[in-house]
């Protein structure tokens, strides 16, 4: 499921990132990689704040609907 509807405050594993190449590359640089861990802290109206490694990253709807976790 996409992280926008994923349960909050629990550690999830990313299985697929369905954005364009350039954005995907940037997400990887930020620690959002397939097989990596991610925790959703808050989600409202499509925008998501998540914890990746020890950083907090804000993503808008166009991205949060394209990151899939198991």
């Amino acid at each position: 499921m996409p992280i926008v509807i994923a349960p909050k405050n629990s550690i999830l594993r990313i299985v697929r990132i369905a954005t364009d190449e350039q954005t995907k590359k940037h997400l990887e640089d930020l620690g959002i990689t397939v097989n990596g861990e991610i925790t959703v802290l808050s989600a409202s109206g499509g925008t998501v704040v998540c914890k990746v490694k020890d950083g907090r990253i804000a993503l808008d709807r166009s991205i949060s609907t394209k990151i899939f976790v198991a």
Partner: protein
Amino acid sequence: MKRFALAGNPNCGKTTLFNSLTGSTAHVGNWPGVTVDKRDGVYKKTPEPVAIVDLPGIYSLSPYTPEEVIARNYILDEKPDCVINIVDATNLERNLYLTTQILEIDVPMVIALNMMDEVEKAGDKIDAELLSSRLGVPVVKISALKENGLKDLMETAYAASLKERVGTTVLEESSLAHLIGDVRIALKGQGVKGPLFHAIKLVENDSIEVEMHKETIPMIDEFKATHEDDVFGDDFEALVADARYKYISEYFAPALSKKKQEKFSMSRSDKADKVLTHKVWGIPIFLVILFAIFHLTFSEDFLYLGAIFKLPTLEDLGLLTEDADPLHYGVRLLACIYDGAVFSPGVIINNIWNNMLVGELFGRLGGLVEGSSMAPWAVGLINNGIFDGISSVLSFLPPILVLFLFFSILEDSGYMARIAFILDRMFRRFGLSGRAFMPMIMGFGCSVPAMINTRTLADDKERTATVRVIPFFSCGAKLPILTAVAGAIVAYFGVGNADVITFLMYLLGIVTAVVTVLLMRNTTLKGETPPFIMELPAYHAPQFKNLMAHLWDKTKHFVKKAFTIILASTIVIWFLTHFSFNWHFLEDEAINESILAGVSQLVQPIFTPLGFGSQLGQFGWVFVVAAVAGLIAKENVIATFATLASCLVAMANLNIGGLDIAAEEGIDAVQAMILATGISVPALIAFIAFNMTTIPCFAAVGTAKAELGDKKRFNGTLIFWITSSYAVAAMIYTIGSWWWTAFIWAAVAAAATALVVLKNKRAAKTVKAV
């Protein structure tokens, strides 16, 4: 001289370290992307002085935004003698991702584990020796903020710079090692320098590298075809990223031992974010904070205490003489703080500065000049030209600094990044991402750094649109125009409330920006809005040292400007108003025969629809002159007011009552001009609006030209500024004077919108048909 480059993730403390090492006061802020250009300084405590280069923050060596390209190219092409890789120890794994890439370059390198104070405060420990032995490069623990470990770091870096280092990679143990090895040998055969780094970037499909090594690509693709992976398929960049992170968490992460063992915990920042970035309350909270800032800076009725408790004025208390002058010195001091209402802190500082210091100083100096035996024209030049101009500009230092202080606090605390986030959804509707908010809010300080900061925007068209609207976010230099004219409106017409008018004018600038962006993104600058991805830094208390450094920088900049460009322009304006076309010296009374009057009267009719043109009669041209002088520097507008008002008073034989032209923020000067020209309130507001939205000062125009690059785009920008300011001012004047014209403007706006929408629909249809 040896050169050391500071490289690291955005907001990991590079610039703080740079400032500590070199004694500079470069701008630091708690959000990613403050530094957008490289910057030099010198560190002197090593055996020989070392040049320190501060680079923009990067997440990896494959750049995403324009400013990241600067950092990448510097490390690769300019070959620094040592790269000091700053690692935010509070986010170790993510920061080491970049480290693994720099390791691959053949350059001496030292790791600075920054923010160790935070790590220790949380009770965590990092084993620097373990990390160092596993990375193969020296690791030094520092705190750039507390200036701990800096000497050790620089000595280590100096020692490292004396030896050569050959790139190493953490990918050696991964399944990709074979593939990378093959590409590396191929590149080495072609004589490529630093083959390891380029080989890995080519495997990653890095766009810059692919462009550089076009002819090698078919061969690499052949190599790649032999490589198989179940999870990633042929997605090599994801494969490489995954391998890096895996290696980091296996070998490097164990160096960190956390006090708390549970894997997930909410930090205090997270809790604050629950409120401050709330779906519903986020934006209202932001607006309240914004209003509070304006209230603290400009309000003459702090917390509305005066209005609520109906406090007595100084006159009611019998503390004034018959001429409404304070009885004695103590009352003068009191009048800076209280008069029927408690003033806000910003106003108090302003009053003390202006009434007690600047006013006093220039009053004395003026008396001295007048009492001397100088020729009348010289006295006029010095007193009315130079002193009035400079003092009116200097009198604005307090509000600018106070407003700037509040913005610095917001920035330093980390709240700015949240504002960008909560505004993103709104911005998206206008065709911008929330990221564009950062340069815009910087525009409230000064357009020049704001325009440079647009480099953090990944999309070119979004960047152009943002550069164009930045001047609408009224900068510090435009504030004097606002307060002087707003103050005069309140004092002369007795309507409104100075802080509310000021706040509304700022809002008008923002609305204009939004509308024009919307228009541009639907017509000339169409394009997809890039996605919003931003790191939210942890909140921290603003650093006093930092804030003071910001203020000092701003003060220096402002004073320097007052005594150079503004001084020069006030002198020029004085000459142009006191000499006729045949080079006769004119008394103040004959200002209408001056060169300036002659030229300005020619162009005056153009401004008639804006309310400050022909309808103002013979003295109306003064507003035109002020606006034109503002093209050099916006402070000039008010300096010009001061210079011209004294002439006007002499000429029109005005009975100005207790007004003091040279005094206090030019409010009285504007009142004298209102008296002389009979200008109306809507026209005055239109005048402010025109100045706010028209072509900015020289410096900003130059910056826009440099940042836009493209000549055609720059010319378009100039036309854009002229049209939008003319339209906005005309709209304000006409609607303010004749309310029913609002319908005409609405109809025009509706027609324009319909036209754009229809055209875009048709364009969309043709695309589909093709």
